[in-house]
Every structure is written in C-alpha cells, then in structure tokens.
C-alpha cells in the first residue's frame, strides 16, 4: 500500500505520465563474436528469471531489448546505450560484459534518469562513476583475494604470479599480491603475458625456473585457458607438485568439457559454481539450462544476469513503474536475497554485491563430466578493490 502511495505521488510529481504499461530493459552484451558464449549466458539468466517470476511486475509488463557489442568498444556501447534510452525508451540499462563498455555508458545515466545494473564487468571503479550504477556480478579483487589465504594456509610460501596483461589481469595480480604478502607469503616473480599468447610452454619454463612452490594465474575465460592449463600439465609442472591457484574465470563450467582431465584438481575461488548445492540454484540451473539450450554452456554470467533481473524487478516494484532512477537505486541499497549462488546483499554504500566466495576444486562426476566442487566458503565478501584504490 505504501508503495502504491509513493508511486502515485511520484506519478503526480513526474507530470502524471509515469505509469507505463510496458517497461523496457535494455541489455548490452557480447552476443556475437569471440565472447558470444558469455552473451548467451546473459540471455539465459534473464530468460530464466522471467520464466520463473513472470514477465510482469504489478500491472507492468517487462520487455527486454538486446543490443550486441562483440568486443570491448566503448564508442559503440555509448551509441547503443543512448539509442536504447532515447529511441527505445528503456527505463533500465543492464548487461555490460566489458569494463570500458560500462564506463562509456555511465555519463548518460543521470541525464537520462536511468539506473544501470552491471551484470558482469568486473573492475572495481565502475560503481564510482555514477550513483546510478548497481552491480550484481563480482570484481576481480573480490574473487582473487580469498585464494591468497587458501594458498598460504595450504603451506605454500613462494608463489609466482602469471596474469594476462590487461586491466582485469593486473587487478588479479594486485589482489593476490596484497592478500598473500599480508599473510606472510612471498611473490617470487610477477609475470604479465600478452593476451594473444597461443603457446604457453615458455611461460611454464619461466615458472619452473623461478623455483616457486605455487603459481597464481589469471586469464580471461575462453580458448586461452585451455592452452594454459594443458601446458601446465604437459610441461610437468602439475606432476612436479607445483600448486595452481586462480580465480574461477579459468575453470568456468562451459570450458570444463574441453579442459577435461587436464583441469582435474585445480583449485579456484569464485562467487558461483553451477554445481552449488541449494534449492534456489537447482531451480535456476533447470530454468537457465532450458533457456540456453545446451546446459553444458551454462556459466557465471548467467547468474549475474539472473540476479541483475531480480534487482531490476525490485526497482520496478519500488517505483511502481515510474521512471525515477534515484528512487530505484535507493530502494535496492542494502537489499538482501537468496541468490542461486548463496545469500547476497547489495552494499548500501558501494552499490556492489556482497556475497560468499567459494573455494572450489575441479572434480569428476559419476557420469564422467567435470564440475567445480565447492569445498570451502568465505562468507560475506565485499569488494576489497575499492578500498585498495583509495
């Protein structure tokens, strides 16, 4: 009742035109090109949420409009976001797989009176660019910090860090270094390798020569992780007892069938595993698996999108369908719910999601498929990246 009253008030304040019948949500993501799989997961997560919760909030029908940006392209992102806002009249912008794409759209938000729900882009600073940004995915800092503790507690003292040489890779390196050195460990060497690396044998040789007991690695999910993990095995590092630590990007579920045996036993920390054991997740996996067609393609961007839709639904509920970005964002600050990944909260101050981070190990299921088996939980992790940047 209170909501209705506020909505009515808002409607009056907004000139009485606010109560639309169809509320449009614009989703920008990589739906074709090299990252098509991740975009497909966005769509699966969104479809799953709407299949489970209906496509209406109150009297309003929700319509999702997709726009494609195959690779990071801020100019295109801005053009598409602008088009979505001014031409399609979307009340919410969502999606955004790459950081620069999200960054490019943030200057529009205030003027357009549109909140943005980031469903993937993982650089800490995005939420600081506009008060209307809310993020339901993770940051590289958030997922890479706990693995440092895992490494130290497991008795590893000397680690070599090997990351892809681009923003998230540098973030991962910094996060691991901060955590591991604070615990008392030593980073013997920090290597940044070009994104376009096909043959990882020379890198493996470097790792071997460094004398480290363990390696911390970060590469973007996709084809290169396959080469990296295979090289790790083939060059005898795994057999030689070198420990492998990484955030979960390296063992995302959709890559596991290809990684196969080579990935067995790898330990990673991440916010979501498709295998997560909860009623909420079972429901999600079933719906999202159906939406994506081939359940083996399901991966983490789907859960970011699923929860993103949850946040948007809550925003629409709070505003009663009126376009009021400030109020919508205010309504989800501190919002807690049970996500497929576990209990989550939108941090009231940073507008980033606070969530459990899990330590997982790649294991083989009875039916011969591989999965990330959760073995340890780090509860209620915020984003250490923002604090580190200050």
């Amino acid at each position, binding site marked *: 009742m209170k909501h209705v009253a506020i909505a009515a008030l808002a409607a009056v304040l907004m000139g009485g035109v606010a109560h639309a019948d169809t509320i449009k949500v614009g989703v920008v993501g990589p*739906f074709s090109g090299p990252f098509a799989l991740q975009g497909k997961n966005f769509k699966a997560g969104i479809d799953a949420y709407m299949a489970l919760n209906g496509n209406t909030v109150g009297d309003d029908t929700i319509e999702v409009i997709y726009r494609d940006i195959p690779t990071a*392209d801020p100019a295109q992102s801005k053009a598409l976001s602008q088009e979505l*806002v001014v031409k399609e009249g979307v009340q919410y912008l969502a999606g955004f797989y790459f950081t620069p794409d999200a960054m*490019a759209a943030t200057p529009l938000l205030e003027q357009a009176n549109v909140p943005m729900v980031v469903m993937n882009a993982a650089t800490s600073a995005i939420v600081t660019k506009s008060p209307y940004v809310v993020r339901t995915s993770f940051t590289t800092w958030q997922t890479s910090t706990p693995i440092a503790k895992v490494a130290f507690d497991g008795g590893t003292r000397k680690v070599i860090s090997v990351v892809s040489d681009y923003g998230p890779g540098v973030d991962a390196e910094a996060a691991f270094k901060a955590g591991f050195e604070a615990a008392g460990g030593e980073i013997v060497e920090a290597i940044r390798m070009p994104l376009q690396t096909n043959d990882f044998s020379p890198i493996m040789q470097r790792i071997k020569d460094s004398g480290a007991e363990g390696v911390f690695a970060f590469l973007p999910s996709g084809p290169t992780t396959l080469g990296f993990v295979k090289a790790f095995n083939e060059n005898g590092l795994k057999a030689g007892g070198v420990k492998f630590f990484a955030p979960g990007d390296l063992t995302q579920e959709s890559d596991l069938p290809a990684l196969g045996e080579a990935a067995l036993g790898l330990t990673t920390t991440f916010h979501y595993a498709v295998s997560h054991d909860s009623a909420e997740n079972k429901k999600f996996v079933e719906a999202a698996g159906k939406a994506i067609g081939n359940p083996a393609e399901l991966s983490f961007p789907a859960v970011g999108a699923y929860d993103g839709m949850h946040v948007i639904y809550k925003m629409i509920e709070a505003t009663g369908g009126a376009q009021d970005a400030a109020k919508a964002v205010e309504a989800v600050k501190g919002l807690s719910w049970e996500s497929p990944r576990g209990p989550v909260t939108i941090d009231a101050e940073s507008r980033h999601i606070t969530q459990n981070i899990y330590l997982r190990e790649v294991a083989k299921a009875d039916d011969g498929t591989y999965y990330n088996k959760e073995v340890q939980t780090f509860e209620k992790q915020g984003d250490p990246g923002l604090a580190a940047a200050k």
Partner: protein
Amino acid sequence: MMALTMNTGTLSTARDRRARLTRDAIGVLVILAVAVLGYLLFPNNLALLTRITAIALLVLSLDLVTGYCGVATLGHAALFGAGAYGAGIAAAHFGITDPIAMLAVGVVAGALAGLVSGAVVLRAHGLPQLVLSIAIIHLAHEAANKASGWTGGSDGLAGIMPDAVFGLWQFDLWGRTAYVFGIVLLIAAFVVLRQIVRSPFGMLCRGIKQDPLRVRAMGASVHGTLIRMYAISGAVAGAGGALNAISTQVVGLDSLSFTLSAEALVMLVLGGTGSLYGALIGTLSFLWFEDVVSAANPFHWLTIVGALLIAVVLFAPKGLYGSLAALIERRGRKGR
C-alpha cells in the same frame, strides 16, 4: 569570374574547373541533405550517426592512401587511435577541454602517427606491406595497453569532459551538438580533400598508384609524395578519432585495433576505392546495415553481413559507388 582568375588556362579547362566546383557543391549539398535527413528521421539515434561520421573520416583517410596511392594497409586505425588518444589525453590529463583545441590535438597526433606508420609501411609492397601495417597496429595497441597510466589501458580512458562548443553548445544526452559538430567536420574535411585529390599533388599520387616507375623517371619523388599523403591521411583520421573521443567521452583500445582497421578497409572496398564518395557510401551502408541486422538479431547477424559482402563482390565488383557510377556512365553513353 572563374575564367578571369585563370588567366593562363584555356577556356575549356576553366569550364572543367567550374564543372568540378559545381560537382563539389552538389557533393556538399548531398552530404548535408543526408545529414539533415538522418537528423529528422532518426532524432533518437544521433549517437549512431555521430559514430558513423567519425568512422567515415577514418575511411576517407584510408581511401587517400589505399584508393589514391595504392598502398595496402590493415593498420589504418593506428592513425585514428592516435587522434582519439591524443584528444582524450589532452582533455583528461592536461585539462585541454575545449573541443576545437582537442580536435587540433587529435589532428596533429594523427598526422604524426601517419608520418611514422607511412615511413614503415612504404618500405615494402603488396603482401609484405600489408604485414608491416598489421605489425604497426599491433605495436600501437600493445603500447597503449602498456601505458595504462596515460591511456587507462584496457579499462579505457575515461574522464574526458569536453566544454561546450564556442562556449555555446553543450554536449547533451541526445547527442545533437556532437552530431552537428561531426557533420561540420566531415563536410570541411570533404571539401579540403576534394581540393587535395584534384591538385597536381593528388594527380601525382594517382600516377604513382598506376606506375611508380614512370613517375620516378619523370623526376618526382615517389617516397616523399606518399609520405606527405600519409601525413594528410593521418590528419583526417586523427580528426575522426578526436571526434570519437569528444562525442563518446571515452577512448578504448578498440580504437587502435586490427579489427577496426580491417572493418575500415571492408567499408572502403564495399563503397568503392579511389573516390571520396565511395568511402562515404561504403561507411554509411555498412554501419547502417550492421546496426539494422544486429538490432534485429543480435545473435546471428554476422552471417548476414558476410552474405552481403559476398553479394557485393558478385554483383557490384567495383563497390557500391563504383558500380553505380559505371552503370550510370554506360546508360549515359547509350543515351548519346
């Protein structure tokens, strides 16, 4: 009036010149008409139109070296990116936020990048030349990625806040200012380039494309001429890059990418090389087509774009503009 100023020319060249100027005026009017039409038909899509304008400058500049000089390059985005980062860094790090000043920085940065990449690319011919250009674009991309303190690396260079144009027109959500700014820039570039490609210098470039040996025998410097054209081309591409930086307020590594270089080449060939109109038509039709099909089906549009390219090669082998011009000429001849 024209005939008077050309006191040394014969009557017929004066008439030719007047005809050419008329054609230029028509060209400018057509661009203007398309621009106004775009504004009226898609008032909500000006960001896309501005983007098309910026890319059109890149493709025009590519046409200068590929279409007029016969230089094969898959690294032309290096010039565009230099302009974008030049303008962006000037705004974000040095507080040069006046759009005209940013544009000037972009033009200079683009011209310098043109000189450097010209000096390297012109070393070889044919395929090895293509490979040199590929090497350049990758080096430029890597360098921008490395210098993340200046360029923001893969996160993109944010924090570009251009002032109002002449202190009067603020860059707005609707992108009107940016669009008008872009169109004015495009028309200015078009007019200047028309003069350049028609000048003796431009003719020399075309001569080099057809037969470098003979041009050298005539006593002209092949290398020097091409380098100069490369610098001009760089200035134009740099202007496009600066426009991109000003209108989107973010510069990403994609502006220095092989993909953008390759796309620009595709657009140029699609429209038809060796005429400025071809470059404009190619850019407009490719980006518009891409926008329509990718909005209609964000998941599988690439196939349709591929089919379009194949169809163009099969049915309009000289590019859209080239084939159209040839068709009109044939009709005209038949009519006579």
